[in-house]
C-alpha cells in the first residue's frame, strides 16, 4: 500500500511539476494566436521528454550516478564541457524566468510591483534549496502545482466547440492572418518549453538523491509515462482556454495576468484563486528545480560533492553555486527586464541547446559497460535517434526564426 502511495505521489508531483513559466506563457500565447493548431507540438515534445527522461532516469537508477557525472567520464571533458555550457546557460536563464514568474504571480494578488517582490522570492527559493528536505520540496510544490488542473476545468466549463478544437489540433494549419514563419517560431518555442533540459537533470539527480535503484525502475517509468503526459494535458488546457476566450477578442498574451483571465471568465473568483495558487506553486517549484539543476550540473561536471542529503559543509561548493546563481537571478531581474521576455528567450535557447543535452544521454544509456542488461533496447534507440534528428532541426531553426520573426511579433 505504501509503495502504491509513493507511486501516486510521484506521478501527481510529476504532473504538477511539468508545467513551469515557459509552458504557461508559451502555451497561452500559442493558444490565443493559433488556437490548438500547434497542439501537436506539445504532444511531440511530451513524447520526446518521456523518451529521454526515461533514459536518464534508468541511467541514474542503474549506475547510481547522475547525468553530468557520466557524460564527462564517457564522452570526455571537452564534450562534457560543451554539454555543461549549453545546458547550464539555458537552465540559468530558465531559473531567472521562474523567479520573475513567481514575482509576477504574487504581484497579481498584491498589486505590489514585481521588482519589490523579486528579492524576497529569491531569498525564499534559496532558503528552500538550502534547508528544505528534497522529498518535501518535490512533493509539496508538485502537488500544489496540480492546482493548474483548474485550466482543464475552466476549458470544460467554457463549453467550447470540441470538434473545432480537435480539428485545429489534427490539421497542421494556421489562422489566415498569421505567417508560416511565425507559426514555425512558436512551434519551436513550444517544443523547447516541453523539452526543457533542466527537467531531465532534476529528474535524474533526484533519483540519485533519493537512492533509487534498479528495483525502482517501475517507479521511474510510472513517473515518466504517466506524470509527464498528464502534465502535457495541462499545457494543452492552458492553450485551449486562451484559444477560446482570448483568441476571438484578438488579445495577444503579453502578461501573466492575461493568462489567468479565461479562468476568471469560466469559474469566477474561486477558480482564479486556484489558478493563482497554481501559478505560484508551478513557478516556485520550477525555480527550485532549475536552481538545484544548475548546482547539480556544475558540481557533477567538476566532481564536487553535491546534493541536498549531503551536509552543507561537505558540499560547500555546490551550495556556493546555488547562492551565486540566486544572486545572478536577482541582479538580472532588478534591471527591470520583463520576466515574460526572459521566458520567451529561455524557451528559444532551450530549443538550441536540446541536442547538446540529449545526445550524451542517448550515448550513455546505450552503453552496456554502464548499463549492462538495462542498456537501451531497439525501441528506445529508434525513438532516441528519431528525436535526435528532430532536435537538430529545431536547434538549427530556432535562432534564424527568432531573428526573422522578431521574436514571433
Amino acid at each position, binding site marked *: 500500500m505504501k509503495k502504491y502511495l509513493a507511486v501516486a505521489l510521484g506521478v501527481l508531483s510529476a504532473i504538477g511539476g511539468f508545467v513551469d513559466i515557459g509552458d504557461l506563457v508559451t502555451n497561452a500565447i500559442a493558444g490565443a494566436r493559433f488556437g490548438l493548431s500547434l497542439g501537436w507540438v506539445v504532444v511531440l515534445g511530451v513524447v520526446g521528454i518521456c523518451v529521454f527522461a526515461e533514459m536518464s532516469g534508468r541511467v541514474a537508477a542503474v549506475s547510481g550516478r547522475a547525468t553530468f557525472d557520466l557524460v564527462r567520464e564517457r564522452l570526455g571533458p571537452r564534450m562534457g564541457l560543451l554539454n555543461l555550457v549549453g545546458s547550464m546557460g539555458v537552465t540559468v536563464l530558465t531559473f531567472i524566468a521562474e523567479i520573475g514568474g513567481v514575482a509576477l504571480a504574487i*504581484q*497579481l*494578488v*498584491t*498589486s505590489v510591483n514585481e521588482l519589490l517582490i523579486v528579492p524576497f522570492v529569491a531569498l525564499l527559493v534559496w532558503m528552500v534549496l538550502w534547508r528544505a528536505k528534497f522529498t518535501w520540496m518535490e512533493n509539496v510544490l508538485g502537488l500544489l502545482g496540480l492546482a493548474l488542473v483548474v485550466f482543464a476545468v475552466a476549458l470544460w466549463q467554457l463549453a467550447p466547440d470540441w470538434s473545432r478544437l480537435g480539428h485545429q489540433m489534427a490539421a497542421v494549419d494556421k489562422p489566415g492572418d498569421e505567417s508560416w514563419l511565425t507559426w514555425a517560431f512558436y512551434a519551436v518555442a513550444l517544443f523547447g518549453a516541453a523539452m526543457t533540459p533542466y527537467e531531465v537533470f532534476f529528474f535524474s539527480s533526484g533519483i540519485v538523491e533519493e537512492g533509487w535503484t534498479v528495483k525502482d525502475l517501475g517507479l521511474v517509468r510510472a513517473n515518466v509515462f504517466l506524470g509527464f503526459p498528464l502534465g502535457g494535458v495541462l499545457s494543452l488546457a492552458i492553450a485551449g482556454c486562451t484559444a477560446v*476566450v482570448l483568441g476571438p*477578442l*484578438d*488579445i*495577444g498574451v*503579453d*502578461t501573466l*495576468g*492575461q493568462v*489567468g*483571465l479565461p479562468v*476568471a*471568465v469560466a469559474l*469566477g*473568483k474561486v477558480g*482564479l*484563486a486556484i489558478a*493563482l495558487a497554481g501559478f505560484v506553486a508551478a513557478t516556485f517549484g520550477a525555480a527550485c528545480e532549475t536552481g538545484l539543476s544548475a548546482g547539480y550540473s556544475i558540481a557533477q561536471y567538476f566532481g564536487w560533492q553535491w546534493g541536498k542529503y549531503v551536509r552543507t559543509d561537505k558540499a560547500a561548493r555546490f551550495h556556493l553555486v546555488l547562492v551565486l546563481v540566486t544572486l545572478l537571478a536577482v541582479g538580472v531581474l532588478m534591471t527591470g527586464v520583463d520576466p515574460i521576455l526572459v521566458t520567451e528567450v529561455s524557451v528559444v535557447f532551450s530549443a538550441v541547446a536540446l541536442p547538446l543535452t540529449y545526445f550524451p544521454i542517448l550515448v550513455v544509456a546505450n552503453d552496456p559497460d554502464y548499463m549492462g542488461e538495462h542498456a537501451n533496447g531497439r525501441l528506445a534507440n529508434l525513438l532516441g535517434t528519431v528525436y535526435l534528428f528532430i532536435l537538430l532541426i529545431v536547434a538549427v531553426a530556432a535562432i534564424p526564426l527568432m531573428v526573422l520573426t522578431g521574436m514571433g*511579433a
Partner: protein
Amino acid sequence: VSPVTVLRVLGALVVLGLLSACVPSAPSPESWREDARRAVSDVAGEVATAQLALEQETADHLLGGYAVVVVVEAEELSGDAATAFESAQPPPVEEKRYDRVTKQLDEATGLITDARIAVAAGDEAAYPTLVRQLERAGRRLDRLEQSLEQPPGGSG
C-alpha cells in the same frame, strides 16, 4: 595605398555616417503600413484586455488587485506600442493617415488610462460606460487596421 589615404577614407566614411544619422529616414510606404497595422493591432489587443478585465471586475470574478495590475499592464503596453509607432518618420504619401492613426492610438491609450484610474479608485459606477467606450474604440481600431492593408486612396 598609403595608410594615410586609408585613414582619410575611413574618416570620411565616419563623418558621412554621422551626418546621415542626423536625418531621420522614412521607411517605405509598405513597411510603414506594416508597422502601423502592428501598432494598431497591439493597441487593439490591450483595449480588449482592459475591456475584459473591467467586465470581469463588474461580475466580481477578479481577486484583490488583479484588475488593477491587468489594466496597468495594458496601459503600459499600449503606450509603448503607440510611442514606438509615433516616433517613426512617416513616408510623405502616408502623412495624412499617420495623423489619423496616431489620433486613434492616443484616444485608445487615453481610454485605457481612464479605465485604470476608475479601477484603481474602485469607481464601479464608471465601469459600464468605460466598457462601452472601450468596445467602440476596439471596433474603430479594427476598421483602421483593415484600412491599412490598402495603400492611400484605396482605403476608406
